[in-house]
């Protein structure tokens, strides 16, 4: 049945795009897990990562770029948290969320003003002939991005579950007053959480640059799917973000292939709507305990 190979090809296309959505969602979930705020400027950080990757690759080898860019974007995100958002934190949650929306727009417009060009191209890391398995084409780029998403989420899970910093962030998320009594300073933990989220956004930008091109529009193109993937995963679970992204990618590509391309956008939002209505805690809810 020739349609099976086609179906598999669509699914693989969906996995490739889904892996990018997962990468974008993980950083969003990290920041939300520790600070209970959703960073609407996350898409702008991903775009910054892509631009930093484009300029970095002009002077540095891949290995250095994939190391330095996430750190640089992380520092920017941490700086924004301690500089702009810390004073806002005293205000109510409402204005913090809104300020991240306009922060994202400010970053995108700043980049559009400083670097006027239309779209920049970044050549993929793994170059070469794609593998053909039962005439289903598996390009190296798909594998590279899939691997990237897996390693990024592995790093995020390791840091969160094993490292002291991760424990501090989980403690702050679970009970801020109790965490402070254990010597974790709110400002330090929030700064680290935003640095870590920003670094993951930078990494997502690097992986998204070759397939999606480097342009200011990358910000919105990654923010909405990242949010939907995070909601599918349950917004507090890193594994959920990884799987949520893949699921979203596949569902989107299938609906575009078999229904109509306009449906792709609509399906993303229908999925989000359904998740919010029927499973707000997401498919992979973090272990929740009713505290006494």
């Amino acid at each position, binding site marked *: 049945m020739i349609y099976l190979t086609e179906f598999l090809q669509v699914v693989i296309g969906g996995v490739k795009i889904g892996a990018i959505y997962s990468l974008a969602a993980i950083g969003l979930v990290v920041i939300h897990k520790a600070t209970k705020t959703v960073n609407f400027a996350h898409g702008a950080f991903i775009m910054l990562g892509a631009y930093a990757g484009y300029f970095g690759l002009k002077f540095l080898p891949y290995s250095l770029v994939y190391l330095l860019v996430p750190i640089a974007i992380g520092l920017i995100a941490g700086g924004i948290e301690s500089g702009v958002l810390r004073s806002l934190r005293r205000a109510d949650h409402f204005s913090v*969320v809104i300020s991240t929306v306009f922060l994202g*727009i400010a970053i995108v417009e700043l980049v559009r003003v400083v670097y006027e060009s239309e779209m920049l191209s970044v050549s993929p890391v793994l170059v070469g002939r794609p593998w053909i398995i039962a005439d289903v084409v598996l390009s190296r780029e798909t594998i590279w991005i899939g691997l990237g998403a897996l390693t990024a989420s592995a790093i995020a899970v390791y840091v969160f579950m094993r490292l002291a910093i991760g424990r501090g962030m989980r403690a702050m998320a679970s009970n801020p007053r109790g965490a402070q009594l254990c010597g974790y300073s709110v400002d330090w933990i929030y700064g680290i959480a935003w640095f870590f989220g920003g670094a993951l956004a930078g990494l997502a930008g690097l992986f998204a640059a070759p397939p999606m091109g480097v342009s200011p529009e990358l910000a919105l193109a990654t923010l909405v799917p990242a949010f939907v993937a995070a909601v599918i995963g349950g917004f507090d679970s890193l594994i959920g973000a990884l799987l949520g992204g893949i699921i979203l990618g596949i569902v989107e590509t299938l609906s575009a292939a078999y229904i109509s391309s306009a449906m792709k956008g609509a399906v993303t939002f229908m999925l989000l709507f359904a998740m*919010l209505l029927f499973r707000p805690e997401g498919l992979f809810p973090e272990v929740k305990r009713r505290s006494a």
Partner: protein
Amino acid sequence: MLSRVLRVVAPSLAIVLISLVGLLCGTYVQYVICIALIAGITGASLVLLVGLGRVIMLATGAMGAIGAYTSTLFIEHFRFPYLLAIGVGGLFGAFGGFLLAIPAGRFRGHNLAMVTLVFQAIAVIGIRELPGTGGSEGMRVRPVQMFGHQFNADYEYLLLIGACTALLAFIISALQQGRFGNTLKAIAVTEIGSEAFGINIGLYRIVTFAITSGCLAAAGGLLAPRIRILDPETFGILASVNALAYPIVGGMTSVWGGLIGGGLLSILPEVLRPLAEYKALIFAVLVILVIGFFPGGILEMLARIVSIARRKPDLQPLPKFNSRTILVDSSTTQSLSGVSAPRHGPALEISDVSVSFGSLRAVDHVTLGVESGAIHGLIGPNGAGKTSLFNVISGFLPPDEGQVRFFGESHIPGAARTYVARGITRTFQHVAIYGPLSCLENVAIGLGHNDIIQSIRSSFVDPFRDPGGIRDRQSAAEALALVGLDGRRHTTASTLSLGDQRRLEIARAIVSRPRLLLLDEPMSGISLDEEQKLLALLQDLNARLGLTMFLIEHNIRFVLDICNRLSVMSAGQIIADGAPKDVIAQPGVRRIYFGERESALQ
């Protein structure tokens, strides 16, 4: 009366004034004023939903699109007159708001923002795919035809849009400054404090969504002829985000904030023409600065500069009350005590009620009776389960097992909203008054006449003829006089001292002539001398109105003075019940307060 009318009509007058002044300027400036007025109305309608309702609304563009496309299509295909088409567009928008509000009832914060963004995206995709809307290439809009005359010149459009926006401004201003707006402010400050006085929070949210979306759609309809081509891009997500900035920059608490924010921010690109490339950046940075340093927006800046004198007390001729006469003269108290004449039989029966949180059993098979007309106290150390039991009684916490009956009727658990109508009201440990509202407005809400239709109707009618308003305000003033806050009718509640705030809560709780008053730690944080005054007030109310009272309290001296029945609770169970003097003497009670050794020495 006059100053209330003026305050409600002022925004519309301002719009009419601007339009008239606009007639003198050049046609380009007139065009800019039209766009600014429409943006102002968009900001003003968002004040209701974003400012008062605290909803992060990202579907403003979609609502505008519904209004613009619906009105244009009705004019094209069904030959509707322009104003009627705008009205129909508004209705479609209101329906859109209604659809958006149903799921929005369950979400808060960023999830709610995402629900509105979902609506925005689906609406824009829907409009582009619908046949007859010209898709992404846009749809041409014919100039306005009214009374056989075709509008061409800018000044004609300026007058038309000026009149329509003035009307919309009046609607929004009346709602925002009237009973409806007050109720929204109350909900925003304290949801439990509103639920307890019969405010249906879910319904208010849905109606606010519908009204705001209806106005946004009408504004979209007004904009359509001025931009000649309708395309989905004009009403895209960027339009929603920019519109969200209008109430934030202008000031979220009043219709003026929306008008000023919308007007100025829509003129900004014209002023920034020389710096065109940077205008989006400047806009975003400006909003962040306002959120960071002027949370109150331009309004707060103006208020701080002009430091408007505190609101003058209202000079309405209300019948003069003297608190002494109220208590002595039976004729005036007649109207007060008519409803709650003391009847025999138990006012409150708690049978075998249990509640547990995870592994902790907070209330363990409690059975308790409160006689009608009594002042029944419940004491016990921290963590004894008093508050959990109180929340079960006041309908905020459904019990795991057991039954609560009021005056013989069985009680539907959890329906706190129905309590006011059934003559049961409460006060709160951490005073849950409506800070931004005046004392009179706080107590008026206590009356419980808070169903949605009534509050909308009185928002429009009160400033002019206000028949209902007089009776409500009269009984509210009576209640304020009863608790000794007669001179503070128009002071903002948040500026009162704690003692006065407690009095205000009591006034709010008694204005609806309840049969049973539940008091949650009325003395917490109260100074010694204030305690005596509140004690006297509560005793008076119980004696004069035959008002049964059930209270939980830590201050044992106060409990011994006021209560005629006392129960003691420890570790989820009632361990003593009866007259206060002998209950305190029981060894079991002294042990839980002073510990084992002490009773041995006794």
